[in-house]
Each structure stands twice: as C-alpha cells, then as structure tokens.
C-alpha cells in the first residue's frame, strides 16, 4: 500500500469516524440522562438532512436552512418526549425501546408522505472545492464534517462540564434521587436531553447530506451505526462514544480500501458486533467493572 492510498484511507476514516461519533453522541445524550434506548435517533438525522435540503432548494441560504431544520427537528424531539416517553416514564426499559421504534416508523412514514421516494442532496457547504493533498483527494465537505463535529464535541464537553444546566443533566444521569432532592426536575432534564439529541442529530443530517445524499429511509442504518459506536466505545462516558465512532469509521475506511465491492458496509458493523460480544462494557472500560 502506498502513501497516498494510506492517506486517503486515513482521511476517509476520520470523516466517517466523526460522523459515527456524532451519531453515537446523540444516542448517548438521551441514554445517559434518561436511560432510554432511543432508536429514533437516526430519524432525527434523516429529518435534519431532508429539511435542510428542502429549504436550501427553496432558495433559502445554507445557514438559515440548517437553523430551521434544527429547530423543527428539535421540536420533533420535544414531541417524542412530551407525548410518548413522558406518559410512559414508569414503563419498563423494553417498552420504552419499542415506543421509540414506533415513533421512528411514524416519522419515516411522514417523511415518505412529504418527500416521496426520491433521494435528495446538497452541494458541499458553501460549495467548498475538493482539496488535493499529495495524491489524496479530500472532498470539499469533509473538512466541514470534521470541523463541525469537533465543535459539537467541544461544545458538549463545555456544556456538561461548565454550565449549570449541563451539570444538572449529569446529576440526573448519575444520581436521579439526589438530583430530585436538589430541586432539579428530572422531567425537564429528560425533555431537554431529547431536544438536544434531536438538534445534534439534525446538524449531523445536514452535514452528511452532501456526502451520502438522503431519503426518507436512511434513518435506520444511521440509528444502528450510532448505537454500535456508542456501545463499542463504552456508553458510560462521552469519550468512549467518540472513540467508538472513530474506531468504527477507521475500520470501515480500511475494509473499504482493501476489499472492493460493498462488503465494507457489512464487515465493519460485523467487526463491531464481535467487539461488543467480547468486550461487553466497551473499549474504554477496562477490567474490574465486571
């Protein structure tokens, strides 16, 4: 393997890794605060992508398009919590999983009704041109993906670590009873976590649309990849989720580089499943937790 191929794989792995990490983080935000296994996360991403693409093609500039998409998707997230998860807050974990599945299917159906079967796309943000780096080509959107993901990660760490709202959220995750005693409304925090996850998802959706195109049915694969990234790295910590996403992206880029045909799409998640089976607490969590 020569240098430029390796570089190409590295860049593509970083690109994919950032996407998967961001997908995983959306799942993680809801899971860590509410312990809900949100299988509708991919639908938020789909909504974000489809809405941005629609607004953009209507002639609205990119940034307002994304903002509108984020707001609408966040509203959908609020709706999911307020009208489905909140009434079922005393149900078992399994029931809650299936509730999010129901929501996901309904969103998929609504998207199909609104946008039909066609795929939609966006140009690279601000029509950024591709970059030649030695012999590797970097698609114009890739720096945006990596940059915005990095910003989101920094933002999340700042939010959870420094702000009162973020600390309250973390308190709900770690010590629900204690949080309640300190006057934190767990319901409000849960609602907020769904809104945050939906908003994050929408941004990711807008980011990946120039790369992969989008349609009403892209939600499920995205959900699955996010869940895999989150659990493989270790769902207990955000660092684990980011690591899981990057590992996932790298594995996929390497298999795609080595094996032609669509096999990498099957092999990469396959490897992640294996990792999960043999390290059930994730890569970051070392021995002693058993």
């Amino acid at each position, binding site marked *: 393997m020569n240098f430029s191929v390796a570089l190409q794989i590295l860049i593509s792995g970083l690109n994919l890794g950032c996407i998967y990490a961001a997908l995983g983080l959306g799942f993680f935000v809801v899971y860590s605060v509410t312990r809900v*296994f949100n*299988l509708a996360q991919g639908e938020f991403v789909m909504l974000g992508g489809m809405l941005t693409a629609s607004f953009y093609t209507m002639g609205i500039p990119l940034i307002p398009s994304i903002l509108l998409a984020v707001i609408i998707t966040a509203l959908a997230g609020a709706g999911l919590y307020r009208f*489905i998860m909140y*009434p*079922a807050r005393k*149900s*078992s*974990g*399994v*029931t809650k*999983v*299936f*509730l999010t*599945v*129901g*929501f*996901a*299917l*309904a*969103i*998929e*159906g*609504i998207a*199909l*009704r609104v946008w*039909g*079967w066609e795929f939609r796309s966006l140009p690279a943000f601000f029509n950024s041109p591709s970059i030649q780096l030695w012999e590797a080509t970097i698609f114009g959107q890739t720096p945006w993906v990596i940059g915005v993901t990095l910003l989101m990660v920094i933002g999340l760490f700042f939010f959870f670590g420094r702000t009162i709202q973020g600390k309250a959220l973390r308190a709900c995750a770690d010590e629900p009873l204690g949080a309640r005693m300190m006057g934190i409304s767990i319901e409000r925090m849960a609602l907020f976590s769904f809104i945050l996850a939906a908003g994050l998802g929408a941004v990711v959706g807008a980011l990946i649309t120039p790369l992969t195109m989008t349609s009403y049915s892209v939600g*499920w*694969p995205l*959900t*699955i*990849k996010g*869940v*895999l990234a989150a*659990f493989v790295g270790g769902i207990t910590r955000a660092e684990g989720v980011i690591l899981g996403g990057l590992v996932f992206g790298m594995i996929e880029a390497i298999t795609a580089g080595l094996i032609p*045909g*669509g*096999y990498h*799409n*099957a092999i990469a*998640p*396959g490897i*992640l*499943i294996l990792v*999960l*089976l043999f390290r*059930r607490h994730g890569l970051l969590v070392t021995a002693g937790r058993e």
Partner: protein
Amino acid sequence: MLVGVKALKEIPRKVTSANLQSLAIALSAIVLLTIPLGAGPYPITVMVDMGFYTIITMGIILLMGFAGQISLGHAAFFGCGAYASGVLTTQYHLSPWLALFLAAIFTGGIATIIGRFMFRLRGLILAGVTLALNLVFFHLVSSLVGLTGGAMGMMNIPPLSLGGFTSQNLLFNYYLVWIIAILLLVFSLNLANSRAGRALRSMNVHAGGSEDAAQVLGIDIMKYKVWAFVLSAVYASIAGSIYAHYTRIIEPGTFFVPLSALVVIMAILGGMASPWGAFLGAGLIIGLRELLRESMPVLVGGVTGSYELIAYGIILVVALLFLPQGLISIVHKAVPKKRAIVNES
C-alpha cells in the same frame, strides 16, 4: 372449591386448556380453508401475505413472549431462508422442497452460532445487536452480487410444486402457507405446555419469570435462550423460503429493519402470551395496511406506502401505552374461568 382437586390423577385440562385450544384450532382451520371458496384473487393475495407474517410473528412470540428475549432483526432470518432457497434452486438446481428444508437447517445453524455468542449479553443491548445483525445481513446480500444478484435482486426462482399444482397458482400458495401456519401453531401450543415451554416461560423476566429461580431449578438458561432464538429463526426461514418461491423475485430491501419492527408490532398488538397473538396481530395489521393502501391515496393522495408506516408507528405506541398485554388479553378475559374448572371432575 368446585371439584375435589385432591383426586387429580392426570394433568387437568385447565393447565393446558387443551379442549378450548383444540376447538379454536379446528375452527380456525375450517375458516381458513374455506375462505378461498367465496373469495376473489385480491383477498387471497392479501391472505397469503398475512400467512407469511403470521408465521414469522409466531416465531417472535416464541422468542419474546415465551423466553423474554428481544429481537429487532428477524427480517434477516426471513431473508436468510428466502435467499438460501433462491441460491440453492437457481445456482445449484436443487428441488425447491429440498431447498426449503436445507434453508431452514442453514438458518437454524447460523442462528445457533449467533445466539451462542449473542446471549452473553443481556437486556436492551440485544435490541441493538439484533438491529445491527439485520444491517449486516442487508449489506451482505447486497454485496454478494454473484450469488444473490446484489441490490438488483434475485430473479427466476423456481416455484414449489406438488401433485400438479405449483406456487404459480395462487390457491396453492394460500393453502401451503396457512397449512404450515396451523401446523406451526400446533407445534407452538404444544411447546407452551411442555417441559421445554415451561422452561422458556420461567426465565421470561418481562412476564413474571426469573432467571435466578430458573437456574437454581436446573434450567440452562443460555441453552434455552439459544433454542428459542433458533426456533424463531427457523419459523422465519420457512416463511422466507415459501415467500421466495411464491414471489420468485427477492431483493435485499425487503429484509430490513421495517419488516423486523413490523413483526414485533404484530406480536405486541396481538399479544405475546400465546401463539394465537400472531394470528390476531398479523390479521389486523395486514388488514389495516390493505385498507390504507386502497383508500388513502384516493382520498388524500400521496405515496402509497407512507400511511401504513405512520399507522404502524401509531399502533405500536398506542398498543404499548394502552394495551400492554395485547389484544389476546381481551379474548382471555372473555373466556369464563370458573367453567373451565368444573369440567375437570
């Protein structure tokens, strides 16, 4: 006390409610077998579809309702049966019946290996793993172009045939699917009230079982989880094989998460406690689907498939919030309980 239960020498009918079950089986068999006599091709086509879903959902009920293990990836096993049948008949020119049989064994084998490792994990993560398996399956059959035709699908799968009829004949399919559905129903009901079935139910933590209690009574919960998983996969595989020989064209998109979710919805709506739930759930959902497909585009326009997806989602949410035991619980409540005991003496 209504009867001197002290004198019980045999397993009382109430334990197995065998009388009622046999009656219900006989009635449904008669109804199902006579329906085609007065029906046109459209309702029969719909009923064939319903049959496939009923079979897969019965497997889901074995796995989720009996053993209490979650799967959101059974479309992969449905697909595994369909593709194995397709490959064996088109590439290796085996007889479709033999292919159906070998496909079931192949799928069962795959499920054994997966289950053996997968059940090292417990709880909700299984939802994620089974979803991911479905994704892997989807991409695998999409990529193995030489074997499966890839994303374009596999064509010209030969039909099943028996005594001069083939599955190009709609009625043949109807009877084939429903006879198998009823046979598998009898199998599931027998299982429910047997040593193996009780072992499965005893470890179902979602329905009042306990893994710890099951284990100290000598039940190998790992083995039984794997068995339930394998059986449910084989049910799906059988449905898949018949489906492949019936439609004669299969493509990867059919065997993805929405189908996996749909059979779970049928099980939840119908009720997980009994295999009968599959008949109720599949019947109602497919009935509703057809209603929506026929009416909605005419009434309000739009893409045909969209309304049913929305409906599935709403049904799942509503069923979980307001009918957690499924529709079968209504039937159970309707059957008077005291009378069943009187018959025993």
